[in-house]
């Protein structure tokens, strides 16, 4: 469970049917980085979501390439998306390192929590 309330609006670029925007944002907000007790959306790890007729494509980053928990977070994101989107849509999670993550990507709530 995240220490923060879910962000008021999706804080990542989204392209696709409007009715899927909220469920996808909610699903990704349920994936929590246990170290900081904040969701991957709040930390700003979700770089963008594109939905077309066949696929949900999520671009994610991590704060560290040396972190062993990456795979676990990806698995959890897939499991949460699987519950939230229509079954005919494939889910593709892409781990990207460019552009590098920075604290300016955090949601307003996360920044407040971390003293910004």
């Amino acid at each position, binding site marked *: *469970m995240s*220490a923060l309330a879910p962000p008021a609006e999706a804080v990542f670029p989204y392209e696709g049917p409007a009715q899927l925007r909220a469920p996808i944002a909610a699903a990704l907000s349920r994936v929590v980085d*246990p*170290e*900081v*007790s904040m969701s991957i959306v709040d*930390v700003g790890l979700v770089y963008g979501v594109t939905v077309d007729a066949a696929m949900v494509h999520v671009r994610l980053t991590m*704060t*560290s*390439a*040396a*972190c*062993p*928990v*990456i*795979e*676990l977070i990806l698995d959890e994101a897939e499991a949460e998306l699987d519950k939230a989107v229509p079954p005919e849509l494939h889910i593709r999670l892409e781990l990207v*390192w460019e552009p*590098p993550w*920075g*604290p300016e990507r*955090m949601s307003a709530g*996360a*920044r407040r*929590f*971390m*003293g*910004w």
Partner: protein
Amino acid sequence: MAARALFGALAATSLAGGIAGGLWRLGVAVPDPLAFAWAGQVLLVHGALMICGFLGTMIGIERAVAVKRRWAFAAPLASGAGALCLVLGQQTAGAWLGVAAALCFLAVNALVVWRQRAVHTLLLAAGAGAWLAGNLLFALGQGGDAVFPWWFAFLVMTIAAERLEMTRLMRRWPAASATMPAVLSLLLAGAAWSGAAPRAGGLLYGAALALLAAWLVVFDVARRTVSTHGVSRYMAVCLLGGYAWLGIAGAAWAAAAIGWPTRDIALHALGLGFVVSMVMGHAPVVLPAVARIKLRFGTFFYLPLAVLHLSLAVRLVPGSFSGPLRAVGASLNAAAIAFFAVTVAGAAVAWRIQHGAEGARKAR
């Protein structure tokens, strides 16, 4: 599955052998101390098993999982096999397998740097270099005064680099990210100097540990996440408790360098108070990732943590004035680690009961 069992067995053998060696040195009876090699650098075997065999293997597995390359597992395989050789009295083979492990681990870290060039990945690579230096000196027959500073620099730099990465989330003084590499450079300089000039090197090393403790207390996200709940708060408590021991270890390390009888305090405040507390903190998150064992977190995780910190206080405070009390404290330290292992096993069973066998199969 077989690979996971093999790595688990190697790490467990190192841990059991390392703890038995430590207790035996303090005069506590453990089963069959004669199973250890008596000749050579017997005083180093306990440290080698704990640092290179157990922690080095765990960190090697953790990094190999992160980079997702099969060859990266050669590092923990070599360090685990090296520890097994040490347990069986094959000192030379064990020490050189440790060198091979550190070389491979350095290559894995170079891959991490290539993927993400950042201050923290460079510091992780430097930590791997410190491990290689320590293992080479150990293989060449150097004593603890020369080897331990490098081995601990490996552990301390690995932890510090990972914490530096997390502090990027927190608002901090702009120079914070530059001061951490400066402090760790002092640590490496102290390690390098310790071989030639133990007094000056030890003073510098101790000062660097104390400065690092201050840095972590001021800048770590644990100060904020300690006010959350569940596993996040537990991790923060483990971290903050560890930082207190790191500061004590720094002072004791410097004091030992000028001849005070604080060597046991320095080594164990650092190894148990700082490093093992860190391991206990991260196990509920890292074990599911590396071993694919899901754990149910509960407040019961605080119990072995409390035993660890209290038993360390017994060992290091009254234990500094009395050999028997030190041995009692050390036995309780060992009990805390065993208690933690039982707690993790219990948490895995609790998860299975909660989610049923179906959930456990899916988790694989």
